[in-house]
């Protein structure tokens, strides 16, 4: 491993030029994160959490923090159902391109310069995505200069989904977007976190989204990773869920040369419900690594997780699904499934469920399968007249569409289905 490359990459990650004035608590948060990031340094494959995901090509890239205000056409990336669209271009928030905030019921604070301070921000920012052992989250926090804090007020329901579009339009840049969503008690909201790249050149995104789900509130979180084909994408989405709160997440990854998604959910009170569905659709030499961590820290929590990978060519999928049931988290009911479909001899999956249980009255199930299409399924479709390639494409499509179809945004389901058809070839409807 090239220590010099790592060092210079870390320096780029931590460049905080133009941070400007900030509130004291935010300065402290950043300073602590900076210290942590320097202490941890960036990971290598010698770190257990990064065994399968070699970042050394990323460290050798020469990246710059992008200058603001490039022009961008966001029309092709809009989602019809979204009421509010918040646009980030090359990591910087673009008020001029964003729309729908007025009258939406959503409060939005831009954490830049002398922003309007509030307890709901300082209580959660940097407290949900733990810096802990994660140098990238630490770096994002240390370099944070143009983050957004969003609040859904108590008892309020957002009628339409909120779309956060993170658009990267040029190569050679390092972007570190940051969003905090606070759903106050009894509120209901849907957020679509959407990472899009429109350049084929290499760049790096290191994004962090934090979500605080208040008592008896519900947040539905769609996460799309459709970065450019040479991109490096590192993203953490972390949710902390209070008593009786519900958090549902659908994550779909099909972009980037290399991507890593850390999906963390923490139970902060009894009676919570988590659902996490994931799909990685990979081809060529892509690598997608999902590390999920479901932390049951209080009684009567339920969690359901289904993660699927469809891996073609020489691509590589990694899934590490950690579920922790802490002492005292009695009557936790947790189920996790990892299902993987390999479409070529060179395709590779590393899947690892990791169940750690410290309570005695719990129901936990997990399972993992890696394989090819079932001969019985292919035969069934052929016996209905479909040729073997059509049958295989249809089954591959079905395997992936199963996840996409769960996303409660019809126009997005159509777009994602079309992407799956592009990748799998099926179903061909005459």
């Amino acid at each position, binding site marked *: 491993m090239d220590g010099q490359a790592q060092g210079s990459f870390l320096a780029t990650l931590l460049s905080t030029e133009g941070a400007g004035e900030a509130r004291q608590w935010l300065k402290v948060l950043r300073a602590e994160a900076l210290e942590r990031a320097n202490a941890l340094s960036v990971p290598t494959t010698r770190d257990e959490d990064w065994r399968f995901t070699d970042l050394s090509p990323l460290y050798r890239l020469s990246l710059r923090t992008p200058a603001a205000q490039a022009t961008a056409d966001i029309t092709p990336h809009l989602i019809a159902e979204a009421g509010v669209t918040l646009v980030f271009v090359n990591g910087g928030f673009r008020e001029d391109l964003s729309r729908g905030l007025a009258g939406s019921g959503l409060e939005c604070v831009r954490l830049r310069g002398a922003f309007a301070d509030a307890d709901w921000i300082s209580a959660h920012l940097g407290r949900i995505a733990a810096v802990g052992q994660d140098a990238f989250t630490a770096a994002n926090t240390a370099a944070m200069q143009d983050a957004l804090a969003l609040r859904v007020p108590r008892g309020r329901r957002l009628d339409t989904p909120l779309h956060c579009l993170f658009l990267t339009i040029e190569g050679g840049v390092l972007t570190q977007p940051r969003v905090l969503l606070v759903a106050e008690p009894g509120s209901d909201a849907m957020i679509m976190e959407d990472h899009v790249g429109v350049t084929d050149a290499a760049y790096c995104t290191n994004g962090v989204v934090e979500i605080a789900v208040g008592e008896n509130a519900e947040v539905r979180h769609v996460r799309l990773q459709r970065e450019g084909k040479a991109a490096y994408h590192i993203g953490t989405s972390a949710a902390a869920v209070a008593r009786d709160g519900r958090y549902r997440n659908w994550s779909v990854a099909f972009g980037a040369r290399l991507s890593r998604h850390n999906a963390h959910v923490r139970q902060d009170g009894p009676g919570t419900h988590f659902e996490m569905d994931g799909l990685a659709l990979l081809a060529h030499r892509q690598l997608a690594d999902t590390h999920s961590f479901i932390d049951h820290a209080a009684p009567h929590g339920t969690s359901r997780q289904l993660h699927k990978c469809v891996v073609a060519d020489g691509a590589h999928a990694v899934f590490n699904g950690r579920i922790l049931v802490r002492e005292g988290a009695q009557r936790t009911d947790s189920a996790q499934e990892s299902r993987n479909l390999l479409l070529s001899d060179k395709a590779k999956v590393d899947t690892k469920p990791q169940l750690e249980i410290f309570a005695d009255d719990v129901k936990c199930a997990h399972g993992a399968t890696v394989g090819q299409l079932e001969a019985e399924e292919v*035969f*069934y479709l052929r016996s209905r*007249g479909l040729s073997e390639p059509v049958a295989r494409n249809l089954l591959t499509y079905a395997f*992936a569409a199963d996840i996409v*179809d769960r996303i409660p945004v019809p126009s997005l389901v159509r777009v994602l289905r079309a992407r799956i058809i592009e990748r799998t070839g099926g179903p*061909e*409807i005459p």
Partner: protein
Amino acid sequence: MTKPEAPVLLEVQGLHASVAGVPILKGIDFTVRAGEVHAIMGPNGSGKSTFSKVLAGHPAYEITAGTARFQGQDLLALDAEERARAGFFLSFQYPIEVPGVANAQFLRLAYNTVQGARGKDELDPLEFDDFVREKMKLLEMDPAFLDRSVNAGFSGGEKKRNEILQMALLEPTLAFLDETDSGLDIDALRIVANGVNHLRSDRNAIVMVTHYQRLLNYITPDFVHVMDGGRLVKTGGKELALELEARGYDWIQKQAA
């Protein structure tokens, strides 16, 4: 129904087949003419389901000897999809689920593929919708089944009705119904059997593969065959099924031994 002069649809001679080197079918002779209804009965593991799958073209089975001609064609030389297009149909004992693919989409894909191969007209989605809804009435199926994923979350009875719906759409010349009655309650059985009876004609034929005599109360066979140890060891009329129901298979196994 049976007419000795009716054209032969299927002629199987001396058929042997094995899976993973283990012989399952050990010399089957079997002839089906147009207009006939056959029942193949037999104990578990006798080879009934294997026989259906071998004829439908399941790639896991190796044909070690024998021939099967379907309407004059060498059936065994065809791929599974070619057999379906040629008019052979198998109703599965355990139909597979295809989540993410709407039933209507799948049915139309199968229908149009087979129609195209037979040189007949394909239907666009609107035309097909009308067409399939008519066929669904036959099986007392709710049109909501068109929008649901193929067999996903269907009950046992719903899956079997969906199988017979596919039979109604693909209009096979010869249909094998593998354990179509197992797992069905009496109402579902009556509906499925009515559907099958509606599809019968003097130009096609049906072979029911079943454990139970019950189905034969609803679809009356012209011939009942008993399979044991990978061979058809006895053939009779519909009264044979009643005798099997009353006496079991032991007496036939002794006779055959």
